[in-house]
């Protein structure tokens, strides 16, 4: 067989093989397998819903949120003084409310299979755990989060890898979606899809597309997308404790 023909056949065979090949390669840890880099300090850009995220709206302002009747009634009964007295100033800082808040967050690897997300707003910590499930334990503001990379590309030949992170959080303590007492229940499941996008000038944005499902206080999944920008200058990190009123 002529050498040129041999080369051509080999190349064609490789191409066919590559097109049918699964793109996920086995790796040992979530950190090693990460298709995107979520680490760093991210700041929420409050360009949407400013009046409901930067400040506490008045009681009964439930606009945009698909509450059930029970949810509306609970929102109308909001009493921040009662929350303070009960030591529940952090009800608006649970994961579903926290991520929509005016936050800076620092994401780092706590270990090879756990991403740690810390916020200055409310001084909260979320742990995004890959791999085997963690035992539930008592309910908490941040609940239990399981994480999974969704990997695309990287199928060989130096092809770029892309992907996103999917997380599911449950075992939540009942809390607020909005600072003015718009509730979610302990039966809430909070699903998030994390994407990182870059602009040609090097700016990086993190987009968190999330779904709050609550059979008690919502009559439909509450679906939003929240965006954050990566900060090179980390000097504006400003830890402030939970506040039930502002």
């Amino acid at each position, binding site marked *: 067989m002529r050498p*040129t023909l041999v*080369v*051509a056949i080999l*190349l*064609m065979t490789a*191409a066919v093989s*590559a*097109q049918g090949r699964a*793109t996920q390669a086995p790796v040992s840890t979530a950190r090693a397998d990460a298709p995107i880099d979520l680490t760093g300090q991210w*700041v*929420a*850009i*409050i*360009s*949407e819903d*400013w*009046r409901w995220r*930067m*400040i506490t*709206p*008045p*009681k*009964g*302002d*439930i*606009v*945009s*949120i*698909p*509450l*059930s*009747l029970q949810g*509306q009634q609970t929102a109308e009964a909001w009493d921040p003084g009662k929350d303070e007295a009960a030591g529940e100033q952090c009800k608006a800082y649970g994961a579903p409310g926290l991520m929509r808040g*005016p*936050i*800076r967050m620092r994401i780092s690897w706590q270990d090879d299979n756990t991403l740690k997300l810390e916020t*200055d*707003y409310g001084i909260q910590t979320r742990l995004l755990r890959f791999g085997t499930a963690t035992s539930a334990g008592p309910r908490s503001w941040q609940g239990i989060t399981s994480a999974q990379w969704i990997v*695309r*590309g990287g199928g060989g030949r130096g092809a770029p890898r*892309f*992907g*996103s992170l999917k997380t599911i959080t449950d075992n939540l303590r009942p809390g607020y979606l909005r600072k*003015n007492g718009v509730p979610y229940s302990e039966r809430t499941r909070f699903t998030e*899809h994390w*994407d990182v*996008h870059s*602009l040609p000038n090097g700016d990086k*944005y993190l*987009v968190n*597309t999330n779904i709050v499902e609550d059979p008690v206080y919502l009559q439909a999944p*509450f*679906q*939003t*997308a*929240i*965006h954050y920008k990566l900060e090179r200058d980390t000097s*504006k990190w*400003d830890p402030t404790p939970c506040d039930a009123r*502002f």
Partner: protein
Amino acid sequence: MGSDAMRRTILTTTVCSLLWLMSTPAFAQVELGGTYAIRMYEDYIERGPGSFLGDFTGMPMSEEGRAKALRYSSSLPSMIERQCLAQSPWVGLYRPLAIRIWSEVDESGRVVAWVMGGDYLRDTVRIWMDGRPHPSANAWHSPSGFTTGHWEGDTLVARTTHVKTAWIRRGVGIPGSDQSTFTVFITRRENLLTIMTVQEDPIYLTEPHVVSRVWEFDPRASQGPLRDTCNVGVEIPSLEDTGEVAHYLPGQNPEEDYMVRTYNIPKEAAMGFAHTLYPEYRKTLRSIYTPPASCGRYCCGWIERQGLPGAAPGLTCNDGNLPAELRKAITGNGR
């Protein structure tokens, strides 16, 4: 192997390699085609009834942008010359619109463009995927602009240039210049479509205006037929052929302080200064903000906009904007 044979081998290898690369599908292209229903769970008032006059919260506006927006009067969109300024196709992503997406393919089935059709009055946006370059900076600007795209994983990244001047927030006249560019990230994930838009405008913005929104795949395609043309017509006869342009002179917009007097927020936040978009601005707010005594208008707009009556069965929320008789028809008690 002689030198000729070696050259043939190298040439054949190169050609085969190129053919191989061309025949390999781009990474993880996603089928975007379909109709997506709007989910009005963010910025309901802006996307629904329209923002309150003088509400520029969340916008990073330049002095020029602010000055121009404050000259806006509600009669301005009734002028024939300006009726389509609110219908810019890309601005449609900020609006209460369903989206229909389809692909255009060449004779071999390769996708040449993705097309986004955005409900009534707006032209389609064609995202060219065939590698063509953007036109000269001096080329014609159209309502849709000129857009090219490429895939990054499951995300279609589109870049738009050559747009026309538009109003970029509903009902308040915040301007976007024809120098605006849009970088748009379109990600379909199962039934959810996320679109993040980064608008840069050297004239009317001081930093990029970033918006991220969610749509949900609608298998019933209930969007309805498209009308892709913004038709104009005389709405206020006294405005036509008189030379009069509805406007407020600088400093004379009576709604300039609407957000201050209605929601107690600082004027600089209402007027769209970029620094008010970031968490550290809460230090300023903490000392001066007190919530209004009641919600006022559009308190539970979700039920109002997603199908009257009773899209939210049993809800008794007093929207604050519905006539009492209509509230009574919905709730049974008029509360």
